[in-house]
């Protein structure tokens, strides 16, 4: 009987404390501070594997590709 009471008390205690581990679901806003999820850098992905120089080189090539004076000279 005593064993049963101890087990019941333990279960009740565990149930009672289970809510304490819950995270708050309300967003706390801090004025002027971004509150959303963090974003990674454009080169931190499978394509560039963190190689910032390679990414900048690719973008630089695309940038200069918009200048048709340069494209004409290259032909």
């Amino acid at each position: 009987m005593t064993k049963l009471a101890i087990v019941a008390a333990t279960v009740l205690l565990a149930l009672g404390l289970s809510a304490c581990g819950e995270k708050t679901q309300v967003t706390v806003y801090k004025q002027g501070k971004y509150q959303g999820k963090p974003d990674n850098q454009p080169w931190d992905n499978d394509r560039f594997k963190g190689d910032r120089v390679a990414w900048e080189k690719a973008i630089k090539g695309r940038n200069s590709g918009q200048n048709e004076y340069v494209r004409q000279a290259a032909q």
Partner: protein
Amino acid sequence: MARMKFLCDAERCIECNGCVTACKNEHEVPWGVNRRRVVTVNDGVPGEKSISVACMHCSDAPCMAVCPVDCFYKNSEGVVLHDKDLCIGCGYCFYACPFGAPQFPQDGAFGLRGKMDKCTFCAGGPEQDFSAAEFRKYGRNRLAEGKLPACAEMCSTKALLGGDGDVIADIYRNRVTTRGKGAEVWGWGTAYGKPEQKPAPQPGGKS
């Protein structure tokens, strides 16, 4: 690194709407939302001018300043992005934006405003790069593929330039000196005339 900017050359824009179509197609933007559009001044009058308008990713973005839930951030390339999971669709950013960039899809039975949608400079958003969630919420992430925005790269007359601000300004300067006219860049001063605001620190993110 680069400070990404848009520049539209009104002397070259032929109002073909190629940029609008490219954007719609690239990101599968829903009906009623136009991240980019072409505006024509003095339409039908000789000497009419057209410009392609979207979010200019301002140096000191007014949308970031007015957002009541602070869902905007600026990435390391100066691209103004937002977290759709936080957006409440209040529309303050729409009133603050001088370019009318923020768009609100109809959501619900009575034309209720959904979460804000705007040009991302083809840089996706705060989701895993190339993930389905990123594409669904923000569209394709071309910047992470080492590419520039689809609208600028698709422009047939190269009226719309997008990329590193210094590089596109040089391209434009070269054009103006060659043709000897059309030095006015519409919206440039409004978007980039104020000092650059540093990217907001992101919780748990790498700066």
